[in-house]
């Protein structure tokens, strides 16, 4: 099934803004995040279809995963 990954801020470095991927049924979010070589501590906001999601969420056809890195400075 088709899913889309949208990367933000520094997560775009060496990657791209939007990736369209074909994944098997039952694929979890972490599988895709790991395949992109994004360390989990580099993800602060994780949205599936614009709603708060988790690394364990299972993709449905057409899902859009959005990943933002943490900012903590002042």
């Amino acid at each position, binding site marked *: 099934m088709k899913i889309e990954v949208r990367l*933000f*801020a*520094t997560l775009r470095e060496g990657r791209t803004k939007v990736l369209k991927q074909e994944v098997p049924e039952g694929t979890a979010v972490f599988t895709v995040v790991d395949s992109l070589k994004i360390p*989990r*501590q580099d*993800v*602060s*906001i*994780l*949205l599936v279809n*614009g*709603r*708060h999601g988790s690394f364990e969420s299972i993709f449905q056809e057409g899902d859009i995963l959005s990943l*933002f*890195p*943490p*900012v*903590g*400075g*002042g």
Partner: protein
Amino acid sequence: MERYSRSIGTLSGPEIEKLHAARVAVVGCGGLGGYVLEMLGRMGVGHLTAIDGDVFEESNLNRQLLSETALLGTSKAVAAKKRMEKVNPEVFVTALHERFSAENAKTLLDIHDVIVDALDNIETRRLLQNVAEELHIPLVHGAIGGWYGQVTVILPGDRTLDRLYRGNQQNGVEKKQGNPSFTPALAAAAQAAETIKLLTGRGELLRNRVLRIDLLEQEYSVIEL
């Protein structure tokens, strides 16, 4: 009221009066905090508490409004008070040259209407969220790193930081990206606006939503959390 004549329209006369009676604590007087204090003071927020245990270092000069070459080695909190005496002497600034910690947190923050999170690390921000919740005081969070920033309003019970910093994140992109002059100014402006809205009851708060700022791509997203 000539001083506030250009604020009229944005706010009403009675709303400006309300600001004069308000008490806001700004935790951290660095990149974000310097600008937040400046903006709140110019709007006439009557009582500002500036909290920071640090002194100015040369590496602050690229961005921190309160920093000056001549002030290197002196207290950031005291600089906030001295600057406001020049900008708006009607504002009373309490300068607390103390590092915010679990031991002094409640004493420093009690009896404020709003707390502004202008800290520079995630661990202390988590502590601040806990203390603000315990004291039942709204918290205006802002954080930056490189070209990127975020702002949100946290009311007691919301625990929004738990969703913004999942797991045990200690650092953000600022460790590699540094902190330029323009990102803190923009994030601080959004924090100041949210603070004024909390104090006057105006508008729609950034509550359970986070504004994410990307100045490299000029993308601004408000994300429901």
